[in-house]
């Protein structure tokens, strides 16, 4: 019975993973491969956001703090300390988790929630951005370049598909982990905190520990996305690593796909980036030149439409439509 249930719970993840793994065999141009890899990196960041924002209901507006920490750790450990990237990736992930632990401990202990939590996370990300932009160790305004060494040992591959598969592997692992969290006691506690924190505390849930653990896991996942970003583009500066763009993308991916669901961040990010590409191409054809920012305007419109008409995201809307159809005789 239990195995049957476990199989039923995890096989969609493997199926989706396998389908995505086959994509590069069909879509072979460099541009599509770069797009897919970028989409996987942002998905990973959104999956991280989803743990604390989707399951735990604590909306962070500053996940750039963790993305940037992972990204800078990946770059600086290689450039300044000659550490191999295969080791730097888990180290960067762990450092991101630490950042999550510190920020989470300070803000949850002060009982910040709602607007206040959103603000304090935003402020931490901004401080880190200003420091990274001014400090010589992080390359200041010039940024950091990771030297090009096309060698699998250096996590740099001649074949672009391999890096895509690496990013996809992490996404699939987090899909599985999200499912495991959802089914666990910890997941139930998080959802209780999201629905009614005071009631959860009254029922004996240690809400501080639940929220803090969720933010640490969340931050670590988003930091891993940052580390992959560094290794994909081999260049980093303060506004790429700690800029508000990634806080917004991570949040949008999860909210648009379906906050608090396993597949939400993946679906949301693909919808979001796909919409961005379509809008950019469309406007470029209409106006005869690239128009900066139009894709982000579309993101903002999509966010408001989602909040207004599909509060459970794309997944919720699809489930609702399917449910309504099967309910009609």
């Amino acid at each position: 019975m239990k195995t049957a249930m476990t199989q039923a719970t995890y096989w969609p993840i493997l199926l989706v993973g396998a389908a995505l793994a086959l994509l590069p065999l069909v879509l072979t141009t460099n541009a599509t491969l770069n797009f897919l890899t970028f989409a996987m990196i942002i998905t990973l960041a959104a999956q991280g956001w989803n743990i604390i924002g989707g399951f735990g209901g604590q909306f962070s507006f500053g996940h750039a703090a963790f993305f940037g920490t992972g990204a800078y750790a990946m770059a600086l450990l290689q450039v300044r300390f000659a550490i191999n990237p295969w080791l730097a990736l888990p180290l960067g992930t762990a450092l991101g988790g630490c950042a999550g632990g510190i920020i989470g401990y300070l803000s949850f202990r002060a009982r910040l929630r709602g607007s206040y939590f959103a603000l304090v996370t935003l402020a931490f990300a901004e401080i880190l951005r200003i420091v990274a932009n001014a400090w010589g160790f992080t390359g200041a305004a010039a940024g950091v370049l990771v030297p090009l060494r096309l060698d699998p040992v250096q996590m740099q591959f001649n074949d672009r598909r391999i890096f895509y598969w690496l990013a996809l592997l992490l996404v699939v692992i987090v899909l599985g982990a999200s499912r495991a969290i959802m089914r666990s006691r910890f997941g139930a506690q998080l959802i209780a905190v999201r629905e009614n924190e005071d009631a959860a505390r009254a029922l004996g849930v240690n809400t501080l520990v639940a929220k803090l653990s969720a933010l640490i896991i969340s931050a670590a996942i988003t930091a891993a996305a940052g580390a992959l970003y560094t290794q994909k583009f081999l260049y980093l500066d303060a506004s790429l690593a700690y800029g508000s763009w990634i806080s917004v993308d991570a949040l949008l991916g999860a909210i648009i796909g379906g906050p608090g669901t396993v597949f939400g961040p993946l679906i949301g990010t693909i919808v979001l980036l796909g919409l961005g590409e379509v809008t950019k191409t469309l406007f470029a054809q209409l106006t005869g030149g690239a128009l900066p920012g139009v894709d982000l305007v579309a993101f903002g419109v999509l966010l408001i439409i989602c909040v207004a008409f599909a509060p459970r995201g794309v997944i919720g809307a699809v489930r609702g439509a399917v449910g309504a159809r099967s309910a009609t005789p």
Partner: protein
Amino acid sequence: MLKLDIFLSGLANGLLIGAVYALISLGLTLVYGVLHIINFAHGATLTAAMFAVLIAHSVFGIDPYLAILVLTPLFFGLGYAAQRFVISPASHGDDSNGLLVTLGLSIIIENALLAIFRSDTRSIDVAYAFSTVEIGNLFLSLPRMIAFAGAFAVSLALWLVLARTDTGKAIRAVAKEKAGATLAGIDVDHIYAVTFGLSAACLAIAACLLMPTFLVNPRIGNSFVLVAFTIVVLGGMGSIAGALIGGLFIGVVESLSGLYFGESLGQIGIFLIFILVLLLRPTGLFGARA
């Protein structure tokens, strides 16, 4: 003696800009006090207002100070409409939805301005931009002194509206006890929208007062609004007196720390104050206990 002069001029300039910060923060704190959401589109609205001043000046040849007469009602209407027809229906009365919808609006406004005006930094050219007034040993910028006086006048006017008019009474009633206000026959949706309108109108005036001496680009609002968040948190969410005193204080801190530690570290000082207040006393110095 010279050192004292530098200090005094830093102090005076801090107070001058602080009054404008206070004006920008007033709208933010008013909306929070009444609707209990942080309006993340506040900065983008300020940017939009600054571009409106730019257009009024460069296309229609309207002086920034005269533009107050046109832009204040215009932005009141825009703020009213945004709350009534977008934010309120989209957020279904849920606070976290309000956060997301205003974030969405801010992304739309900021990037629409980026698409139209590109990322170039622009300014307007008025004859009095560099006029100064001599007070003792200090030379103070005339437009900034006008901004200081204007910011105080608007704050006083806003306070009078809240304290003396029926609408003001209704706003205060809704802020204190929404259900009771509804029972007393107050149209809460209308009052929410009026509050948003007042907030946007304050930003329009702030933009008119700022433009003679400041530059504008599509992201300029962010730098002001992060300062405004700090002021609002410091002064206590929803407190008008807190926003005024907080604004002057942050203006002085920014000016003096910029003077002694350089500009980028001066910014960090503001964020540190912000985080410390949030962590140690989230109700702010003047806010009611949460």
